[in-house]
């Protein structure tokens, strides 16, 4: 077991050990990538099932964007739906107006959202805590109006929205359109999570977290707080924007009504429920966002059928109760709660 020591005497792993240790991630990825070929053929997972999986991964990327900003850099954002919308519209406009191939729109959406995020990060420097939360919330609320702005209509198509087409699998691969999108989304997610992991493990990541923990101490240690904070805002927006672009391609339609502030709230809830400062938390959060409404709906129908209530029970009530209970039991999110449980089992 080759180990080296870093400057302050803490044992570090060689890159090879870290790579090997991540074997279970590789295994999981392999299984996920093979799903269309085994699951699809046997009919185990339907096209609709692949749609669900794609959406879970898309939201995981979006939540990851928020986690980078909030969990790892301490800047609260209640407005990530705005970046999601920018990414979605960038992809849709390029495909619709400029006939770009879908895969080429992803990098452009990424760059576009980075710029938007960076620009928003500049005034955000002056805001802290609650004020930043509310300012970003304001941003989220303004998105539909922004998308309907008269002078943008020539490319956003205003309230009617933009219709695009989902790509067909290339090279005549024996997968359906939904399965192909799933593979694209999976590949994109793998790359982006890997990049995020490297980012957090690097000097930049440590600077980010130092700023989160104590920004004044960080700046006295020579970290350019302003620079890092704005760049991280940009990166965070980039991630959520790419998720938005994928979302647009999957649904083949964007409209201002698709990006109301409920979306920003959903991303935030996903991040907190998943685990605000953990990469696995992003995945859990993404799954949560996609899945919770259906469970709430199903549970509501079951309860209404079983118990006669003097009122019309609505899914949102169950959703609200679920959120509160989750925060009770696991205030650090599911990833946080699982980590705690793991520690307790190991008896440390």
């Amino acid at each position, binding site marked *: 077991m080759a180990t080296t020591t870093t400057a302050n005497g803490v044992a570090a792993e060689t890159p090879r050990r870290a790579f090997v240790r991540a074997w279970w991630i590789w295994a999981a990825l392999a299984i996920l990538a093979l799903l269309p070929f085994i699951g699809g053929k046997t009919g185990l997972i339907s096209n609709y099932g692949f749609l669900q999986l794609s959406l879970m991964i898309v939201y995981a990327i979006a939540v990851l964007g928020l986690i980078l900003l909030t969990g790892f850099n301490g800047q609260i954002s209640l407005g990530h739906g705005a970046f999601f919308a920018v990414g979605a519209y960038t992809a849709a406009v390029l495909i619709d107006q400029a006939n770009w191939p879908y895969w080429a729109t992803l990098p452009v959406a990424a760059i576009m959202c980075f710029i938007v995020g960076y620009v928003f990060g500049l005034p955000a420097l*002056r805001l802290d805590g609650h*004020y930043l939360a*509310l300012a970003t*919330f304001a941003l989220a*609320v303004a998105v539909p109006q922004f998308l309907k702005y*008269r002078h943008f209509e020539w490319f956003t198509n205003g309230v009617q929205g933009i219709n695009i087409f989902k790509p067909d699998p290339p090279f005549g691969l024996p997968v359906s359109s939904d399965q192909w999108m799933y593979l694209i989304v999976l590949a994109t997610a793998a790359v982006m999570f890997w990049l995020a992991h490297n980012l957090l493990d690097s000097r930049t990541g440590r600077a980010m977290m130092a700023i989160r923990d104590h920004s004044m101490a960080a700046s006295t240690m020579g970290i350019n707080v302003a620079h890092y904070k704005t760049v991280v805002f940009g990166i965070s927006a980039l991630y959520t924007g790419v998720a938005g672009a994928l979302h647009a391609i999957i649904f083949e339609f964007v409209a201002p009504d698709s990006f109301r502030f409920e979306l920003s*709230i959903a991303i935030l809830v996903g991040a907190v429920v998943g685990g605000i400062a953990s990469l696995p938390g992003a995945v859990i959060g993404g799954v949560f966002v996609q899945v919770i409404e259906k469970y709430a709906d199903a549970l509501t129908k079951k309860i209404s059928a079983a118990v006669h209530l003097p009122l019309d029970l609505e899914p949102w009530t169950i959703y609200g109760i679920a959120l509160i209970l989750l*925060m*009770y039991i696991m205030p*650090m999110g599911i990833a946080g709660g699982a980590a705690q449980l793991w520690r307790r089992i190991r008896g440390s």
Partner: protein
Amino acid sequence: MEQLIQQIASGLANGAIYACLALALVMIFVSTDHINFAQGEMAMFSAYICWQLMQWGLNFWIALPVVALISFLIGVSIERIILRPLHNAPVLSIVVVFIGLLAIFHSLAGGIWGHTIKDFPSPFPKVTFAGSGYIGPHQIGMIVVTLVLLLALFAFFRFTPLGLAMRAAAQNPTSARLAGVRVDWMLALGWGLAAAIGAVAGSLVAPAVYLEPNMMASILLYGFAGALVGGISSPGGAVAGGFIVGVLENLIAYFGNLLEKSSGLYIVGNGEKLTVALVIVITVLTLKPSGLFGHVTVKRV
């Protein structure tokens, strides 16, 4: 010119709505350091309770204190039962709890009373007077009540021992405890008062905008904007901020319209009122982060 006056008057009327809600938001923020995202829905729920009491025959001015009391109790219960176990939890977890409360209050209102709009009669007499082409009796009533509430709160915090205890508990809980203040109950009291203020706000807003579950959603946003502009730690500032936002959004649309009519150039109009208002909020915050009338909190290193 005539229209300008009318738009300003209408803006003040709307501003009263935002100011009232902003007051409730500030109340909770000042006493518990949290921003209650569920405030709008709680106010809407209280408005429904008021409506129901009126359906059962009570006069508005009798129903209102009853609803305020019920809402006070609901607020206190929420703080004691739901928030107390979580007071060491991270801020964002508490935000999620607020979102949960938002969802519950919103859907309960819809589930109990339905989603179609309900007529909520105005408690103020329908008299016509000199300026009633500009601003109606209900709007004036709202402005008056908002200002009365503000004064009452100011007096409460400044001149009563309980108010002093609440301020102490919010600013320095440890020292306050040492001085004998029951800090936990001060937090609960803060929530109760905020809920009661929200109940008054909701009951006064409903006649103007018609009662339905989505009534407060957009007003909450403007309430936030008002509180931010005026300073979220200052009740007076929040009220002023509410009025400012109300007047500002109307003026933006008015001048935008004027520009378009006179020169054909369209920059902003009715479709951008919210966006521009929020841009202004963010600009104000960038230049003066604690709001126009807020006080800067000194952070210890």
